[in-house]
């Protein structure tokens, strides 16, 4: 009997849907080890206090806040991309929907953990609710993150219901009994009745519109956390739009990275096509120009006519004893290399686009470092301190270990979610048992 293309696609997810492979277990173990190592660092921090970090009275926020912005950026951009894909009904984007939803939820789970790590008195964390002051941007952020996480987690679930139903009904996969029962419960008895389709579509539409607005607002709130302070380098009206753009840029890079990993891992070449890479590479290029524009705009206005403190701040980006090298790397990874690779057709392959995406992610991580640390090292009042650790911030092993744990947790959560549903919206691609992948509009470009 000939097996339909839909069943073939489902079979590709045999691991880890029906059972986990060795490589899956090894990766899972490695990530667990990362998290475990972070926990050791956390115990150190709890026992000895924040003295074990590189943070001191001037640089009061370090890697923790940088990770916080990075992961929230990933989360919010995943949310924005997911809802834009859904609302605009871009048909070729269908195979990519679950990727955006996955890293949106995971980013919004991992990001806030770093805020907890940065708080001096974790034992008093519930004061944030007990004594909440609505004037404080932290309270805004708490509300924004919680609402967004709830919305996006709900959206992730709703978007998976059709897949759960397909898995429940499928005979080609040998899913363990306990998991089949769980998936059956999650599918909520969906069977494709017109009434069910209508309810599902409507709720997805409403959520997508809500998420589009709330995610943009929440990422702006994150920017205002800094923009509303008086410090040179932070007090900028440009900050909210720049945060949104940088987040989207890192989100598209994250999406490309996920496309590549899943395509390799599950041999999904027919579903995640080369065309998808070219289109997303094109999106990356547009955002790259946007990033270049914002970077230029940010620095040139400060440099052309400059006040005394702003001058001390901007000089650090040009000084190779300070942040010159890091600025150069940010510009190379975030602007120059992406433009060269993505503009010249000869360099444009799925592999090279993925490498660019990884470089962009690194560059944008460095960008967050440049947003936080140089500003805190440049207060209005000169520092004049004999203790070098109070003048310059250097992250300690505790902070790096916890950063590693954050990335480990990010991978772990996605791996666990993959246990219960394929990362490709199989139900949306199926038409009468056959898989139809809509083609992007400019397939002639390559």
């Amino acid at each position, binding site marked *: 009997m000939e097996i339909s293309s839909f069943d073939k696609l489902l079979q590709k997810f045999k691991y880890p849907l029906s059972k986990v492979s060795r490589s899956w277990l090894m990766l899972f173990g490695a990530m667990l080890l990362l998290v475990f190592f972070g926990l050791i660092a956390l115990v150190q921090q709890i026992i*000895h*206090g*924040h*003295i074990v970090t590189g*943070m*001191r*009275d*001037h640089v*009061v*926020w370090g890697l923790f806040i940088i990770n916080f912005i990075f992961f929230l950026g990933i989360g919010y951009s995943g949310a924005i991309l997911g809802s834009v894909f859904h609302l605009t009904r871009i048909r070729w984007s269908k195979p990519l929907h679950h990727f955006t939803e996955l890293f949106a939820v995971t980013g919004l789970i991992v990001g806030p953990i770093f*805020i907890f790590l*940065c*708080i*001096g*008195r974790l034992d*008093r*964390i519930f*004061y*944030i609710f*007990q*004594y*909440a*002051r609505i*004037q*404080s*941007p*932290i*309270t805004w952020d*708490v509300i924004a993150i919680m609402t967004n996480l709830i919305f996006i987690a709900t959206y992730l679930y709703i978007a998976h219901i059709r897949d759960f139903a397909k898995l429940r009904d499928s005979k080609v996969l040998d899913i363990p009994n306990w998991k089949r029962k769980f998936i059956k419960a999650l599918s909520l008895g969906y069977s494709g009745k017109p009434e069910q389709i209508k309810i599902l579509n409507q709720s997805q539409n409403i959520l997508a519109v809500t998420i589009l607005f709330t995610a943009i607002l929440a990422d702006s709130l994150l920017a205002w956390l800094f923009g*509303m*302070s*008086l*410090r040179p380098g932070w007090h900028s009206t440009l900050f909210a739009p720049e945060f949104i753009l940088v987040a989207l840029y890192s989100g598209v890079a994250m999406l490309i990275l996920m496309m590549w990993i899943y395509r390799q891992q599950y041999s999904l070449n027919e579903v995640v096509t080369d065309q998808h890479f070219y289109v997303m590479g094109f999106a990356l290029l547009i955002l790259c120009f946007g990033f270049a524009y914002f970077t230029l705009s940010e620095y040139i206005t400060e440099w052309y006519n400059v006040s005394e403190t702003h001058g001390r701040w901007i000089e650090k980006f040009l000084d190779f004893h300070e942040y010159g090298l890091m600025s150069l790397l940010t510009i190379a990874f975030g602007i120059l290399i992406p433009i060269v690779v993505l503009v010249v057709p000869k360099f444009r392959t799925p592999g090279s686009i993925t490498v660019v995406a990884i470089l962009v992610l690194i560059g944008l991580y460095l960008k967050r470092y440049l947003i936080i640390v140089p500003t*805190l090292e440049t*207060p*209005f*009042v*000169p*520092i*004049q*301190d*004999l*203790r070098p650790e109070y003048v310059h911030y250097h992250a300690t092993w505790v902070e790096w270990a916890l950063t590693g744990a954050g990335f480990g947790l990010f991978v772990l959560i996605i791996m666990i979610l993959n246990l219960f549903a394929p990362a490709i919206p199989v139900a949306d691609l199926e038409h009468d048992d056959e898989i139809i992948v809509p083609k992007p509009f400019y397939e002639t470009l390559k």
Partner: protein
Amino acid sequence: MENSKDHPRRDFIKLTVAAACGSAICSCKTNNESTLTAADEETMQLLAPDGSLVEVLKSQITPLPDSELVTGMQARHGIPGKKFVMVIDLARCKNARACVSACQKMHYQPEDKEWLQVKLMKDSENTAPYWFPKTCFHCDNPPCVKVCPVDATFKREDGLVLIDNERCIGCKFCMAACPYSTRVFNWEEPDQSEEISMCHSSPETSVPSKVGTVDKCDFCPDMARRGELPDCVTACPNGVFYFGDANEDTVSNGTDTVRFKKLLEDRGAYRYLEELGTEPRVYYLPPTDRMFPYERGLDGLSDEKKALYDDIL
């Protein structure tokens, strides 16, 4: 010169601790040997500083001179009718740093924790350097208070900005928000004696420090309640600091008591970084007709410390 007159807060804390311990011992006695108390002596129930109820023999009670503990509500509300201000005369400062050590002594802070700092400033190439003591400015539009998520740092009616370190969650947002780098964080368990760390903590004394929370200059409101000047003011050998009440239009540096408005007018006072709009309550008198050349402040400093000022000079 460590007598009780110079350090009333120290003595007060010692006395209260002693009282608490004493009453604790008494209560043990009353619990274990209730027959003893039943003999004709009357007992009294008292609230110990740690909040527990203790029973003490009436004959054992001796009133303490400064036993008026300010309630949490009073500490948040402020001293009625007052508007505290400080005037710092830059013409008199020679970096003697008596203010810094007095402040550290008063608040049981180690040498490397400076709530009050003295910086060397030089505004431009051709202008003269000068020493710049910097307290908390107790701004009327405080950026730190705005951002606090839990109301741990607050603005009082008498103008002071204080910290309740029993409330502080240690998010450090106030430190990032303060444009004057006033606040310090307890990155590890504070190096304070057990006697001190057991004390009842109040925003008015800022003692004891708590790990994972923020500290800063508090203008010593507990001393103001007793009608005394903050320790930095009295410790300064040159009378740099004037402290007082704007409502009374009077400030004093311990030796001279002058009209606040008149002093500002006569000496052309200004506020540091006025353009930020934080409305500081600390005014500076420009370093004109100086008592000392700025080099006097470098006397006795180690070469290492002198090197700190290389960028400035």
